[in-house]
């Protein structure tokens, strides 16, 4: 299987005129012809997947991905219902949709698949798929545009998509169904009189198209907020599709662009643009906005800090959990990483970074630092050492030490070993003076009986509000 990737990208318009009434206006006809050219290009490229990011499908709970393998219905536009109806029956790659959803969750995004008979597929997606994939030969996938998403979230959405494109070795086409300027005339017009709503909109549209024709997709991405302010109807999904499309193309400025058509539909700026990933030779230009691999932002309003019981106030945002849990003052929780020899278990607390619970090398097992947090709930037996404002709290070092030993035992047993095989332990205490004797007492009752070598260090802080952590080495031999 060859390495997958994006073989072409397209910007396409959303209004139904290109499907239902191309001959009522010469501009609409040009857009339709350009759409048909784009379809021919996609066919020639032997693409095996069409991915649509649609600005006419807004979502609130993260991003939604269409996963009905064969959605069928009749679309009627809310505004342009008098143009007629578009019947559709699409070929959706549900497997890809689910894989994308999983990949998104892994990268900290809130996302979900939708698979419901009669789900109202949005006008932009229906128009784009009807025209770009007329015989439905190429499987497609559609993603919504989240109303609250910012650039990093949208970028990460593209990266999770690319994860799957690469993993599945797909020849994918990325499509944004969108208007440029989206101000329409607020009154009904004679089709023949259609034009771009205003000179200013037209000038901005031409500027965007000039950039795209030069392959400067990333520059358009960086200008998106300005473009939204200048030529977009506010409160409609913001001008964010270029964030997605730029990230789908590696945030580059040296792509090869071609504007196939630029015309007005009821005043809105509509274009069909083909972006070829082949380097234009113009030389890569600067890229200075933050590039983001994982999404850590703004989610999880449901779990506000004031609601959380005291012992779970230090739960962490979980990239692995769709970012459901918001952390105000501590590190995020991660799924343990997987690599050769790694040993991971749900019975131990989640890592606070990209590392496994333990790793085997030959007959040795090395554990990552283990604290007292409880798997699942993340509660700290004996209580956290400070509150969310950093105010110290009373805590029980013995209870914490017992919990550490229990967590160590779970990981050791997951590796098929026993506590008797522990050979060396390094213990970190945040308050040697206060805690050494309590810790030492529990040690004597537990690991002390096994007999590993031991080193105890006083340190300034641990990443979570705990007082004790152990670093353990196990000999797995006979």
């Amino acid at each position: 299987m060859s390495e997958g990737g994006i073989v072409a990208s397209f910007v396409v318009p959303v209004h139904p005129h290109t499907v239902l009434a191309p001959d009522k206006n010469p501009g609409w006809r040009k857009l339709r012809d350009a759409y048909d050219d784009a379809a021919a290009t996609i066919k020639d490229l032997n693409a095996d997947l069409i991915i649509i990011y649609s600005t006419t499908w807004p979502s609130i709970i993260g991003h939604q991905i269409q996963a009905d393998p064969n959605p069928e219905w009749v679309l009627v536009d809310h505004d342009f219902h008098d143009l007629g109806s578009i019947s559709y029956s699409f070929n959706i790659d549900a497997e890809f949709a689910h894989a994308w959803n999983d990949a998104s969750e892994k990268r900290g995004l809130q996302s979900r698949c939708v698979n419901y008979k009669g789900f109202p597929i949005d006008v932009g997606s229906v128009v784009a798929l009807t025209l770009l994939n007329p015989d439905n030969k190429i499987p497609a996938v559609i993603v919504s545009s989240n109303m609250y998403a910012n650039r990093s979230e949208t970028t990460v959405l593209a990266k999770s998509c690319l994860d799957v494109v690469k993993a599945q070795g797909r020849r994918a086409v990325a499509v944004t169904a969108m208007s440029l300027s989206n101000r329409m005339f607020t009154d009904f017009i004679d089709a023949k009189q259609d034009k771009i709503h205003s000179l200013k909109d037209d000038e901005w549209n031409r500027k965007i198209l000039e950039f795209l024709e030069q392959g400067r997709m990333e520059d358009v991405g960086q200008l998106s907020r300005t473009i939204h302010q200048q030529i977009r109807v506010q409160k409609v999904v913001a001008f964010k599709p270029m964030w997605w499309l730029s990230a789908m193309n590696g945030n580059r400025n040296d792509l090869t662009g071609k504007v196939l058509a630029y015309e007005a539909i009821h005043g809105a700026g509509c274009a069909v643009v083909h972006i070829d990933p082949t380097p234009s030779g113009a030389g890569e230009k600067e890229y200075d906005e933050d590039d983001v691999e994982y999404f850590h932002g703004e989610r999880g309003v449901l779990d506000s800090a004031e609601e959380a019981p005291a012992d779970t106030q230090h739960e962490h945002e979980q990239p692995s959990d769709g970012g459901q849990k918001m952390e105000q003052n501590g590190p995020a929780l991660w799924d343990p990483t997987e690599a050769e020899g790694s040993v991971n278990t749900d019975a131990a607390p989640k890592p606070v970074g990209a590392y496994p619970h333990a790793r085997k090398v030959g007959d040795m097992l090395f554990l990552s630092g283990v604290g007292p947090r409880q798997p699942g709930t993340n509660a700290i037996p004996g209580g956290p050492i400070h509150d969310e404002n950093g105010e110290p709290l009373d805590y029980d070092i013995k209870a914490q030490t017992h919990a550490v030993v229990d967590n160590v035992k779970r990981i050791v047993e997951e590796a098929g070993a026993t506590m008797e095989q522990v050979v060396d332990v390094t213990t970190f205490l945040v308050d040697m003076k206060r805690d050494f004797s309590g810790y030492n007492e529990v040690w004597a009752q537990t690991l002390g009986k096994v007999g590993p070598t031991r080193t105890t260090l006083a340190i300034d802080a641990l990443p979570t509000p705990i007082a004790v952590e152990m670093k353990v080495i196990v000999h797995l031999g006979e």
Partner: protein
Amino acid sequence: MGRGQIVAGCIAPHPPHLVYAENPPQNEPVAEGGWEQLRWGYERLRDSLADKEYDAIVLLSPHWQTYVGTHFLGLPQFEGLSVDPIFPNLFRYHYDMTVDVELAKAIHDEAEAAGLPVKMMENPDFRVDYGTITTGHLFNPDWDKPIVVISSNRSTAYYSVEVMQEIMVELGKATRKAIEASGKKVVVLASNSLSHRHFTTESEMPEDMSKEHITSHAMHLWDMRIIEYMRTGQSQRILDEMPEFTEQAIAESDGGGISWLLSTLDTPDYPAILHGYGTIIGTGNAVVEWPCYQHEVTAA
């Protein structure tokens, strides 16, 4: 034929969660209850109007969003499946509704005469928006009254709340005029929530009420302020503060429903009845009734 009359005007919010929680046979998903404060509010509203006679319901829904003029459902019957594009897990409702096309056309014509861009929607394949279905169901679960459905013209998006309100006040006047001329008794519904900042996550079980609360104190204060104006008959103040409310509470009033309703009721100076208030995925919602039947002269 006597003079037509507005029997009552209501704010009747439409989050699909309320229909989901009721488990009516028309809706596919199944819930373990939830959002009872608002559902009881709707129950009290229905009780309050149970002995009032009326011929039709006129409803404006912010989820039939039109950017080019104001549109009216223009065929006598619509049936189909309404799936909420944002909460498809909660709302997949099989609807069958009767439209009072005559009254719709009358309002359309009045609005046109007032200079507003308007259009009748006569495509039989049209899928009625979920806001209309939700409010329609909660207000009248038997669907035994014909309904007039008015789209929400998104002029806020183009201009400002002030301009939107001017348009909606005009549309309200036209609505009132057409109702009075029709000889019909009508209940008018603004399908609308108040503050409208959503949570961006959903609980594992959406009806888990331990997770439901307003998104912020500021949103709560705005909701209470607007409700207080309603309860004390200060509709003009609501209209006056609409720009600030709409902007600061990200309120669904941007769709014009509340402005239209108050104008249709002739900016009532008598108190409205608050039947219930609650939050839905963090947004503020109130079920409110202006009992026009007590205040408006009946010319029978």
